[in-house]
């Protein structure tokens, strides 16, 4: 017996992004330890690392690695870019935000980079083990990032809530995985797929396992009824972290979920698992949109809106197909741009982290700070799905998928809840432009980094909204690669 690792050719360059990000994280820790004076340079270093990681994506070779447990495919590359974009934007907002809150440090950037590694693992893992490990790496980083501002009570509270819920949910994921393992003898998705193609749909253990698994993933996605942490955590977390948290882990979890659902495709309809997904989608859309109306805190409102948006994405997952995967990918990209942007504008508000950023704070912002106001308005219009923004295109894609796979009822519910959502998104615009600010208006402070991040988001939103074709092609090609495996 030799200790030859199970390594396929090209393995190193294929995990180059992960390696780069991991090493950059370590470098940042070291810098923080030995060169604390160079704090200002941490964020640029992190940005450089992200850019290099993005560039290194051009070297990866599609294929299965590490004993068919790690898949690199156009889809993972696409999602890697989503994670990297989200992380990049979050870092850009954090740079000034952390300085303002006086908590900047190398650990922050290190953790966010490692979290990106975790997400990549979730996206690429073909073994539930890898997925769980990635998820855990991500979670650990999130626990810390959320509570990063140790001074702020609500930051700590958010961290606590996320930690307890996260650990609890992990328990469910693990239990579900264990049950699947027991039934199939493996946690590798390919083998699970083989197993499902001959499994009994009526087997109760399988359904139990599925529910447990979906509960755990649903927690990460913040779908109802596993969503309850989201508003509190977003509110308490440093705003750039909330921005990142509201999109990136969800995207990662979606890929993992897509893979798992893909493996389960042979029996998911017969076992009524599609119905579970549909119910989750509907519940999320309804509750997210309804409760968002009642929110005055911007971050909480965005949290509920995020719950609803995941609901929309879940629609596409009900019946899995190349189009639905592409739809989710497009939606995820769009959602990254607009939601991080929206949180980003909130993060620019000159307030302490433990004070809530309410609608009143942005009253009159549209005329006080035209660019920030306009940016937030554009994000809101995009979130509500109005043309010609990316939000429209991606929602359109979702509806199209829903209709062509015959889920008309769900689509109608989605439309109706969208109408509800328009109300609270519009309310933001109303505060931006139609309400006079209070005596001492809250200002926004933005340096070049944050401004650049806003510009990236806006340009992206309109680019996708007006010329979506290239993205469609990429997404569809990626999706075909994934679904084609079975």
């Amino acid at each position, binding site marked *: *017996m030799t*200790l*030859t*690792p*199970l*390594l396929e050719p090209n393995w190193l360059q294929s*995990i180059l992004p992960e390696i780069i990000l*991991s090493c950059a*994280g*370590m470098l940042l*820790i070291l810098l923080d330890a030995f060169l604390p004076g160079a704090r200002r340079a941490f964020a640029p270093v992190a940005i450089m690392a992200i850019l290099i990681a993005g560039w290194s994506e051009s070297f990866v070779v599609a294929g299965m*690695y*590490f*004993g068919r*447990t*790690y898949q690199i495919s156009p889809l993972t590359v696409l999602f890697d870019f989503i994670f990297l974009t989200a992380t990049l934007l979050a870092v850009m907002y954090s740079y000034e935000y952390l300085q303002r809150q*006086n*908590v900047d*440090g190398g*650990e922050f950037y*290190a*953790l966010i980079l*490692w979290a990106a*590694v975790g997400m990549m*693992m979730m996206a690429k893992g073909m*073994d539930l*083990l*890898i997925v769980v*490990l*990635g998820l*855990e*790496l991500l979670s*650990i*980083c999130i*626990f*810390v990032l959320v*509570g*990063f501002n*140790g*001074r*702020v*009570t*609500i930051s700590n509270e958010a*961290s606590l809530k996320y930690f307890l819920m996260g650990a609890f949910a992990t328990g469910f994921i693990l239990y579900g995985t264990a049950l699947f393992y027991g039934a199939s003898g493996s946690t590798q998705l390919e083998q699970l797929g083989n197993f499902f193609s001959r499994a009994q749909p009526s*087997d*109760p*253990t399988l359904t*139990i396992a599925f529910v447990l698994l979906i509960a755990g993933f649903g927690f990460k996605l913040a779908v109802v009824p596993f969503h309850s942490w989201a508003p509190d955590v977003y509110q308490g977390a440093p705003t750039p972290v909330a921005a990142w948290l509201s999109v990136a882990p969800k995207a990662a979890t979606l890929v993992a979920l897509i893979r798992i659902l893909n493996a389960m495709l042979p029996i998911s309809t017969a076992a009524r698992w599609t119905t579970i997904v549909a119910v989750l989608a509907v519940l999320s859309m309804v509750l997210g949109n309804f409760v968002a109306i009642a929110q005055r805190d911007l971050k909480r409102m965005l949290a509920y809106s995020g719950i609803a948006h995941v609901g929309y994405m879940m629609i596409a997952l009900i019946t899995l197909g190349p189009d639905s995967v592409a739809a989710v990918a497009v939606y995820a990209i769009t959602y990254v741009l607009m939601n991080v942007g929206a949180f980003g504008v909130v993060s620019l508000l000159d307030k*302490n982290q*433990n*004070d*809530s950023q309410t609608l009143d704070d942005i009253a009159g912002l549209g005329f006080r700070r035209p660019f920030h106001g306009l940016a937030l308005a554009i994000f809101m219009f995009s979130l509500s799905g109005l043309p010609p923004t990316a939000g429209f295109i991606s929602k359109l894609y979702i509806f199209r998928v829903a209709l062509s796979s015959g889920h008309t009822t769900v689509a109608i519910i989605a439309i109706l809840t969208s109408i509800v959502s328009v109300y609270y998104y519009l309310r933001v615009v109303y505060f931006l432009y139609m309400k006079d600010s209070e005596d001492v208006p809250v200002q926004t402070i933005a340096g070049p980094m944050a401004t650049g991040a806003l510009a990236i988001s806006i340009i992206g939103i309109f680019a996708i909204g007006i010329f979506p074709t290239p993205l469609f092609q990429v997404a569809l090609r990626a999706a075909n690669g994934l679904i084609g495996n079975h």
Partner: protein
Amino acid sequence: MILEYTVFFVFAAIAVIFGIVVIAHRNPVVSALSLVASLFSLAVMYILLEAPFIAALQVIVYAGAIMVLFLFVIMLLNLQKTIEPRTHPIQQFLGWTGSAAFAITITYYLAKGAVILILPSTPFEASARTIGISLFQAYLFPFEMVSILLLAAIVGALVLSQKLRPQVPLEGAEQR
């Protein structure tokens, strides 16, 4: 055979009873110690399942390291004397009945679906060696990534528990 059954039942009972003590006793120190007991009896189960390496890990890592950490924190925070106030009765009720129902449901289906699941009599090769070998062969990548995970945890623990920098006066949030 009898021995095995006896061991199983005794330690299963210990695991369950101490498990219940963990969640029922109002002193966290007692809970922690009960958990150690419960985890230890699980280690026995692992041995029954012919996984001695995991059993050893269980004792060393779990019952040993992790639980010591718990106790350490409890002591550090001086929690051994705190008596926990009662939970809201509805939460209490739903917690108990819910988990009981869950237990019954799962048990029912597991038992129903798995009656035929009799442990194979063939011996199970799960020594430290075999596990170690496969860790460095098939599971090299996850194994390496765990290092990042642990590193992140260390950094995170440091960040979270570091001494606070001077407090900026808090507005709005009530401080206890």
